[in-house]
């Protein structure tokens, strides 16, 4: 199992009222102080060195724009620094937002340099970018998926096809492709794809034999999504294994359960996945054309259903496991909280805190002493059987002291047990078994990797 450390790198000094009032996107940047930002960016880089020293296999970065939740506006800058100041860890970028970056040749060059400087430790990954980021960078949302697919194909080609060559595509055109920086890993760095349970993306991953990394999604729909991947993989002629799947789990550890819970609660204001989804105002999270027709249909039902749960931020936690409900959890949480124009800050804050026990029950966040969290993590591993596992932590306004304490306790008291479980459960990583290399069973019927039954046991 490949074990990673991940944090959103929040700007921790944003007034909480502003976050509640505006959400994930749209907070005026007068609330951003670059002196404090400087301190935080350096602190977050130092944390990655610490994570390496404490034994993590990988450090994961992501990219978001115009938001207090994540300071990685240009993730490749951080990755380039880590390439030099770390020695062993994989630098896992989940992911570069291809439509938002808008220049795949430049991206191919940046990533090649990161791979070279790190002596081949880069794991690349791609995302479509949050809805809001189409506004932040003026990327046409109506072509989001077209940009994604064309840019992906172009980057891989720029890495692998000797130049010079000319490229005339639909959305990108280059008259002279001959980059004098190329990845040191051949044929190119590993590619993993993170996501929030979009079936379209999962099928695309299966076709490309890219591991799919679910971002702290609900367990049952995640297993169902694994099965969609499994079936798409079978059509491609291979059997999936743990190496095809990754999972990010939010974990907060402290000396007592109470202290861990107090810290973890603030994750509700700083996290990604479900955490930030609830805060996205719909006009920014659902730009026109950004969603597939199927996804729009799910949104349509939510927006036009007068009986839909209003302002229940974590309504998604109660979703059933029916396949039709896949990905709806996120949509409902986003849509519900912003139906009304007026935001009652105190009431919303209370609602968010009140939802925490539900979040904990759904294991969206696991918190407590090492003794408390280890069996819960085991449950997650038994249900999802991922070959890539990230401890996702330290989002929201959490102090430096608590952040460091959390990382240290996890690495010294939780991670060894988790590694043992990984061995026992044979959760092999993509570095141990090449994704897409397992033959299908003789029957031709593919086997599942995840197990909903394990959730009940």
């Amino acid at each position, binding site marked *: 199992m490949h074990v990673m450390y991940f944090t959103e790198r929040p700007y921790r000094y944003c007034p909480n009222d502003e976050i509640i009032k505006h959400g994930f996107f749209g907070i005026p940047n007068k609330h951003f102080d670059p002196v404090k930002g400087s301190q935080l960016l350096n602190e977050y880089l130092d944390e990655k060195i610490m994570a390496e020293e404490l034994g993590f296999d990988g450090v994961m970065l992501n990219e978001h724009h115009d938001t207090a939740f994540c300071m990685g506006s240009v993730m490749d800058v951080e990755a380039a620094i880590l390439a030099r100041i770390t020695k062993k860890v994989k630098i896992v970028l989940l992911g570069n937002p291809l439509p938002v970056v808008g220049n795949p040749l430049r991206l191919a060059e940046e990533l090649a340099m990161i791979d070279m400087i790190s002596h081949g430790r880069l794991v690349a990954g791609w995302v479509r970018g949050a809805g809001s980021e189409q506004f932040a960078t003026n990327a046409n949302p109506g072509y989001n998926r077209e940009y994604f697919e064309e840019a992906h194909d172009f980057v891989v080609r720029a890495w692998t096809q000797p130049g010079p060559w000319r490229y005339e595509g639909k959305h990108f055109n280059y008259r002279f492709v001959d980059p004098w920086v190329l990845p040191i890993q051949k044929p190119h760095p590993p590619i993993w794809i993170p996501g929030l349970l979009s079936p379209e993306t999962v099928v695309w991953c299966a076709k490309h034999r890219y591991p799919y990394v679910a971002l702290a999604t609900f367990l049952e729909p995640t297993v169902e999504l694994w099965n969609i991947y499994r079936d798409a993989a079978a059509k491609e002629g291979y059997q999936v294994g743990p190496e095809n799947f990754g999972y990010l789990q939010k974990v907060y550890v402290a000396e007592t359960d109470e202290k861990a819970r107090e810290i973890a609660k603030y994750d509700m204001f700083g996290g990604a996945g479900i955490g930030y989804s609830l805060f996205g105002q719909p006009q*920014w999270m659902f730009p026109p*054309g950004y969603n597939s027709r199927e996804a729009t249909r799910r949104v*349509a039902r939510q927006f036009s259903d007068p009986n839909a749960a209003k302002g229940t931020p974590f309504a998604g936690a109660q979703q059933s496991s029916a396949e039709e409900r896949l990905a709806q959890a996120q949509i409902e949480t986003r849509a519900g909280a912003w139906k009304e124009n007026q935001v009652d800050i105190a009431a919303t804050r209370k609602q968010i805190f009140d939802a925490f026990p539900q979040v904990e029950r759904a294991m969206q966040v696991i918190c407590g002493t090492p003794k408390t969290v280890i069996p819960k993590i085991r449950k997650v591993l038994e249900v999802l059987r991922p070959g890539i596992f990230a401890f996702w932590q330290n989002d929201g306004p959490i102090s430096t002291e608590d952040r460091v304490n959390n990382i240290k306790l996890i690495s010294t008291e939780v991670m060894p047990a988790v590694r043992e479980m990984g061995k026992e459960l044979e959760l092999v990583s993509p570095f141990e078994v090449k994704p897409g290399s397992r033959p299908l069973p003789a029957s031709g019927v593919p086997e599942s990797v995840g197990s909903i039954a394990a959730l009940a046991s």
Partner: protein
Amino acid sequence: MAENSNSQWREETVKVDGTDLLVVKGGAGKPILVLHEELGHPGWLKWHSALAKTRTVLIPLHPGFGRTERAEWMLTIRDLAGFYARYLKEQGLAPLDVIGFSLGGWIAAEMAASNPHQFRKMVLVAPVGIRPPRGDILDVFQMMAPQQLLATVLDPANTPEFPELYGGAANPEQFEAFEEARAQNARLAWTPYMHNQTLAHHLSVASALPTLLLWGNQDAVVPPSAGEAYRDAIPGARLVTFEKCGHRPEIEKSADFIREVEAFLG
């Protein structure tokens, strides 16, 4: 949403360049082309009925705007203009009168800039397409469809046909149709937003085309200064402004609107 026919109009499909073009058709007499706005053909309104008394009203539904599939080759509003030029030619309709609303007005202007002879007279109702010299075109992509609709009229409660069209509970089909239309709007006009930087330079070729520009003086979607820019770009064009009126004079000032249009078209 429009039904498929009633006593005043019906729908028919014609093939244009491999694309099924759905056309709402009503009335009798010489044809007038109606180019609808951003969110699709809103339905048959009083002004349609008024014009249909003496004319055949042809309302093609822009491909990909909620009712029909998009044509993937279309990348800009100019492409839609070229598509309709082909429709007019193949159907033997040109030259004919045209009236375009908002984004539909932009399509008509592009058609006039390309070939003014395909039109007899042109009415543009608060068209996007030219960057307003003062103020900005409202960014409807930063709002959901209901807010977008509300922004189009000055006083929704006192605009009789507005609640008829958009009142009551939203239904999923309507939401989906709006989102389809908005997605296609984005593909065609995300940037530069809802305008073509070179359109004004091309419009002088339409100097012989009688043109009427209609605008609400309190249009919150397209600032009335854009009307002046259009007037200056098309030699001889006349700009008529309605008082206490937003982006949709055809329903906000329905009687005045019909009078102006009838007088102009003759």
